[in-house]
């Protein structure tokens, strides 16, 4: 009987892991401590004096990310001074996707003069804690004083592929809502992106 229960529990758990979902709005934001392209380690706790963090799972190789790079830079430039800096994390496994190696990350960061940290999730340990499934994927974190909580997850705006034809700036609106003391609405949005390249 015990063995059966164990097998069932295992099956359910693996099914849950298979259909990964981002962590829910309102949940505590998992901590992280990762090396950036400048060699320095960046942790979530480094931002304890900020109003929040715009955490974005990105990478070098996904064309949807590339189509959003300027928008991500613009977000940092607009909101960092208002207490919401951008932090970018690459969780792709270079073994599966060579273009996403640490060295290539350094090259891209320099090419685009990223004004924000570009961190390497080398062990792919941070990825499952957030449940990110694609790049780019945004987790807007709000600083509640003693901890960070998730305020919004999903897309940057309503047109991932084309910055010139955006109607709704989901993330801008979400950040402005948090700054005004309100809850983002919508708090969860979706967009097509590249599946994150997990070690096989």
């Amino acid at each position, binding site marked *: 009987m015990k063995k059966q229960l164990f097998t069932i529990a295992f099956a359910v758990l693996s099914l849950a892991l*298979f259909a990964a979902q981002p962590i829910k709005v309102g949940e505590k934001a998992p901590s992280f401590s990762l090396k950036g392209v400048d060699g320095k380690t960046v942790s979530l706790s480094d931002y304890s004096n900020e109003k929040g963090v715009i955490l974005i799972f990105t990478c070098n190789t996904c064309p949807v990310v590339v189509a959003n790079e300027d928008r991500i830079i613009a977000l940092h430039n607009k909101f960092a001074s208002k207490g919401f800096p951008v932090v970018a994390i690459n969780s792709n496994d270079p073994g599966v996707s060579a273009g996403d190696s640490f060295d290539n990350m350094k090259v891209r960061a320099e090419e685009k003069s990223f004004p924000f940290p570009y961190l390497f999730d080398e062990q792919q340990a941070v990825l499952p804690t957030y449940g990110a499934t694609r790049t780019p994927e945004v987790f807007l974190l709000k600083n509640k004083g003693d901890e960070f909580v998730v305020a919004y997850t999903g897309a940057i705006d309503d047109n991932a592929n084309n910055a010139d034809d955006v109607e*709704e700036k989901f993330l801008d609106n979400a950040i402005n809502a948090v700054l005004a003391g309100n809850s983002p609405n919508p708090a969860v949005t979706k967009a*097509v992106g590249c*599946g994150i390249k997990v070690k096989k």
Partner: protein
Amino acid sequence: MFNFLNVTCMISNKMCILGSVIIVLFLVSFSAFSQPKSAIQVKNFEQLKPLLHQQNDTLYVVNFWATWCAPCIQEVPYFEQIGKKYKDKKVKVLMVSMDFPNQVESRLIPFIEKQNMKNEVILLDDPRQNKWIPQVDEEWTGAIPATLIYRKNERNFYQKEFSFEELDKLIQSKLN
């Protein structure tokens, strides 16, 4: 080609004309072969939607992919094999491409030709992804590859990559 023309024209006028005709025919047939054999249908989501809700007894296998998505193109041949294997078993494979609309000629069509794809390919050109992603499946985060398999009102959505064995086994289980 020009050497051929030189030689034929040196022999006589008649040979020159014949040589030119041969070359023209060659060029025409060459350009005919390089026409895209597959026509790409382009649909927005409202136009695609009916294909995701057919009420006949065909098993629809709808794969969401793009040429810029490495794991997607890896499984394209598996879906081709499925399309071929279950052709007479009321299984219809639809390959819905999320390629950038301005890269149809430069990327999508050449890929389809190179892979000799026989499955129906539809380009989904609808930027308001947050609106239509939940309409395909509530749980879908938008990550590709992803596959919807349905027959009448029985629907299952798989946000994952398939090996051929997995996909084949799954289709077989749904046909029994």
